[in-house]
């Protein structure tokens, strides 16, 4: 039950230069506590959390400092013990402002008593999951919600929401996503190599919580060590569990494309994986779930790949949430040469930064500093109809045509041509010889469609 033969996503996508070698062999390094942690209340998709501490409070690690503002939201916890210096607006990686709690670590890094309590309370949860899953499921979902876990692959969708499918959508398959198809990033790769057993335990917990029959661990075949490690972890599990080797291709890590590659099922337009009986969780998320259920620990740290030709010593860093990008970069030796673009996340879907005053969030899979020669600026030349974008688009769209409609601000036409089905993977703009900002056009179209839908 280990690695099976490579599978392809249906022949669409691109093969970018991966540049993973800078960090793929480097063990995860634990970053010492920085002098300040700026913990944003908006680290996930959905409503920002509501801060429940104020300037002058002292907090312990794992203590709730932001409460989830509704179901599609996630709680935020103090990443270490220390004093709250301020609660004020700070920029997020997306460039907008959101409330953040500034914490000056006291160096003790003491856990809140609630963590130990939770651990004891959940000590027999694993056993109960096995014996009486129906009753224990709710507890797992509650534990995940308490821990403030949000999709750690980059999208940041609150995990407890994914783990609570409506009763009419039975989940058959759980996919643990270790594809990590973004260039440069190796955080998930290293996690799988170093902590395969724990990830797998997390996967089994999620499987039990969902009542899924099948578990697949998806790994691209450019990560043989990760696949081997996961294979070994999966080996002694009973049931329908396997590691699937995916052909290395971008966007193999995109949920819907991955489901198609592994199960041959196509999530309907506008639908969710649960519509075809599937839930996809990132490997980091699985690890976080395990930590919450087994150790009672909320999400307070994550592995981030700090890399790119401009970073002096590229590393996989285990950093506390709230660590400023400037501290991350300093931990990696600073910049060897001035970057021209700094990307939070991977270069295909990440967010370009205007500075390093943003802090690490649950979604920060990487920080990539690119020099001028690697930054392909958009120039918005007219489309030369080469058709490369059409060929590359995994959603089956015609980005050339759509971008022209959107350039002319003909939103209705673009909506009619299914602009809403764009997954913003960036394949089209990656291959476009006219260097058109295709994805940005798509986003404008999608924003318009979303606004139309909101209208009564």
């Amino acid at each position: 039950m280990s690695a099976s033969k490579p599978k392809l996503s249906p022949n669409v996508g691109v093969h970018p230069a991966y540049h993973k070698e800078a960090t793929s062999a480097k063990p995860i390094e634990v970053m010492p506590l920085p002098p300040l942690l700026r913990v944003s209340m908006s680290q996930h998709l959905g409503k920002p959390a509501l801060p429940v501490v104020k300037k002058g409070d002292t907090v312990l690690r794992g203590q709730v400092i932001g409460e989830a503002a509704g179901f599609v939201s996630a709680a935020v916890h103090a990443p270490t013990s220390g004093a709250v210096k301020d609660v004020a607006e700070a920029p997020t990686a997306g460039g907008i402002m959101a409330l953040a709690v500034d914490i000056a670590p006291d160096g003790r890094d003491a856990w809140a008593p609630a963590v130990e309590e939770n651990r004891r309370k959940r000590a027999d949860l694993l056993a109960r999951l096995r014996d009486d899953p129906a009753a224990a499921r709710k507890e797992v979902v509650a534990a995940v919600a308490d821990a403030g876990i949000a999709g750690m692959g980059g999208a940041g969708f609150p995990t407890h929401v994914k783990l609570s499918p409506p009763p009419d959508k039975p989940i058959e398959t759980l996919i643990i996503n270790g594809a990590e198809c973004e260039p440069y990033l190796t955080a998930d790769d290293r996690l799988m190599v170093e902590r395969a057993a724990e990830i797998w335990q997390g996967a089994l917990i999620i499987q039990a919580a969902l009542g899924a029959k099948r578990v697949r661990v998806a790994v691209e075949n450019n990560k043989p060590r990760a696949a081997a490690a996961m294979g070994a972890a999966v080996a002694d599990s009973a049931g329908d569990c396997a590691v699937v080797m995916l052909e290395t291709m971008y966007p193999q890590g995109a949920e819907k494309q991955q489901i198609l590659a592994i199960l041959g099922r196509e999530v309907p337009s506008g639908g969710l994986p649960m519509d075809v009986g599937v839930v996809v969780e990132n490997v980091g998320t699985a690890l976080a779930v395990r930590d919450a259920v087994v150790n009672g620990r909320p999400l307070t740290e994550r592995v981030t790949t700090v890399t790119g030709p401009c970073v002096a010593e590229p590393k996989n860093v285990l950093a506390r949430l709230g660590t400023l990008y400037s501290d991350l970069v300093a931990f990696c030796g600073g910049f060897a040469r001035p970057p021209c673009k700094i990307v939070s996340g991977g270069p295909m879907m990440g967010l370009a930064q205007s500075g390093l005053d943003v802090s690490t969030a649950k979604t920060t899979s990487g920080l990539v500093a690119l020099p001028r020669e690697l930054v392909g600026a958009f120039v918005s030349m007219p489309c030369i109809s080469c058709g490369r974008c059409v060929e590359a688009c995994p959603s089956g769209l015609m980005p050339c045509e759509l971008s022209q409609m959107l350039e002319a601000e003909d939103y209705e036409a673009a909506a009619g041509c299914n602009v809403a089905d764009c997954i913003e993977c960036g394949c089209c703009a990656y291959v476009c010889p006219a260097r058109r900002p295709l994805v940005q056009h798509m986003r404008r179209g999608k924003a318009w469609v979303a606004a139309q839908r909101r209208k009564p």
Partner: protein
Amino acid sequence: MGITIAVLTLGGAGLVCALILVVADRFFAVHEDPRIETLTALLPGVNCGACGFGGCVEYARALLAVVGATPANLCPAGGAETAHAVAAMLGIEAGATDKKVALVLCGGDSARAPRRFLYNGVADCAAAHAVGGGDKLCRHGCLGYGSCARVCPAGAVEITAGQLALVHADLCIGCGACVKTCPRKLIRMIPAGRTIHVLCNSPEKGPAVKKACQVGCIGCTLCAKLAPEAIQMNGFLAAVDYARELDNQEVVDKCPTHCIVRR
């Protein structure tokens, strides 16, 4: 011989087409209230949609559908003149018309308000605003990519050399299209003919505004003290209350950042 055939064929084809057109015109003609045309002619014909209908013809149709149900004063572009003409034709009340014009509440051009980063992408304000929150250091100021200028049916909005939108009040027809399109919501409709304005939209505190812009309102409240009737403080931002008269040169002269102007 050849030429005769050619002339005959082409002529014949033309004749057949003409016949078809004549027949179509006779039998498929849509009979419309002829007053719609007359009424449309009274409207300015800019099709800006400010009346709430999909263009001038639609407004004319609505006016005629149930006479008196739709007010005659809905066209800001036409103003009082149009309202009276329409009212006279339909025999209804003209209603009140106050000419309004748009005002861009930002004076921070590129010489006075620095940028945070080099934006690379679609030259459109909403698009730029969605990338990293917009490239201007001030998060409330005009981005200057001209979305408002593009939607203005009257060509009244100029993007200055300093990458700042500027509404020419004399050209503005008051349709409000620019107000709706601005992603930073810094265009306001104000009564026409007013001369003194606070050109800032930033609610931030003084030091933050100072860092981001040389001509931003720092919330010193001086103007509100000098003209307490007509200028109010909204938090840290002074705002002219256009419902009241304001002709106080002192506020213009004394504003420490010169964000109050006479125009």
